């Protein structure tokens, strides 16, 4: 783990000296992880791709703020998560606006119902609807990356106690969905 951090820091150092190939290596390494995180939070491939692309660009411009002694993966995950939250807010605002337009006189003729063809259909909708973005993040990091409360907290910018509670709620909701119970945590 430590050597992986050192390797990342080495790549970042090279990037800071203008080595674009080093940044390409970072991107190759983190594209899958970033997409997995974003898509599991956003539930939409197109949005996840937008978020990842923006995050890679932003990360490059902010590489000089990265602590070379720190963990690049966690730093980058934080960036992805923050962008996911922005995306969710923007989408929410758009759909609120859309609903208003639709409920008033038809200024725009939209027919049929808006559907998102790029939505991730392979995921269980019941599970997705029950988890908040924070819970999704906590669950993802715990299940895919074996993160503990402290590491989840660092990305969520909350206390480890709060992060553990998010994870607990997520696991309980998931179990309830799998077992076909009513979700109430």
């Amino acid at each position, binding site marked *: 783990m430590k050597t992986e951090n050192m390797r990342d820091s080495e790549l970042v150092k090279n*990037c*800071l*000296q*203008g080595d*674009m190939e080093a*940044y*390409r290596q970072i*991107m190759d390494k983190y*594209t*899958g*992880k970033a*997409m*997995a995180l974003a*898509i*599991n939070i956003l539930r939409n491939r197109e949005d996840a*791709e937008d978020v*990842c*692309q923006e995050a*890679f*660009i932003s990360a*490059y*411009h*902010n*590489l*000089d703020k990265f602590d070379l002694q720190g963990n690049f993966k966690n730093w980058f995950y934080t960036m992805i998560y923050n962008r996911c939250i922005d995306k969710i807010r923007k989408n929410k605002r758009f759909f609120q606006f859309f609903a208003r337009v639709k409920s008033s006189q038809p200024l725009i003729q939209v027919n049929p119902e808006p559907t998102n063809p790029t939505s*991730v259909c*392979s*995921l*269980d909708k019941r*599970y997705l609807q029950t988890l908040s973005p924070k819970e999704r993040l906590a*669950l*993802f990091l*715990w*299940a*895919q990356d*074996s993160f503990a409360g402290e590491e989840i907290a660092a990305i969520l910018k909350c*206390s*480890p*106690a*709060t992060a*553990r*509670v998010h994870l*607990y709620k*997520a*696991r*309980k909701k*998931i*179990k309830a969905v*799998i077992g076909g119970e009513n979700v109430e*945590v």
Partner: protein
Amino acid sequence: MWKCKVANFLFKAVSIKIFQDYVVMSHIQTCSNCQSRLANREEAQSLLIPQAELQNGKDFWPNVRHAIGEKQSPLKPALVYRWRWAFIATLTIGSILVGIWFSFTPTLQKSPEPTQKFHVNYIEIENKPVQVFYFKTQEENMFFVWAEKSEEGG
């Protein structure tokens, strides 16, 4: 079993994260009955889209490289960047001081009253009177005064 019920009741009843975490850490984490009501890693993973499925998806590199420029280094001019707040503060204070200065100076710049006008009788240079010429400019209150030494022996 009653402990589990109490723990779950307290968790729901007191929605303070620190307290909820205390309940999780003190009972739920170590209780096999409570653990059986939580999804384990395998169950969670079965519902998440795995990284392996996305590894060979979209290649972001062409767009990212285009956006960040081919040879641009992410390093900002270190000195300016590190001291940006000092620069901003200095500029702000400077602007305020200049503002204050200009708010007082207009009284000095006002055109003098006719009685206070500068009047030249004669000018001496090296203890000798010199010829004085007035030039009126296009501006009403502006004159040039030109002093010229008389030529020696002239």
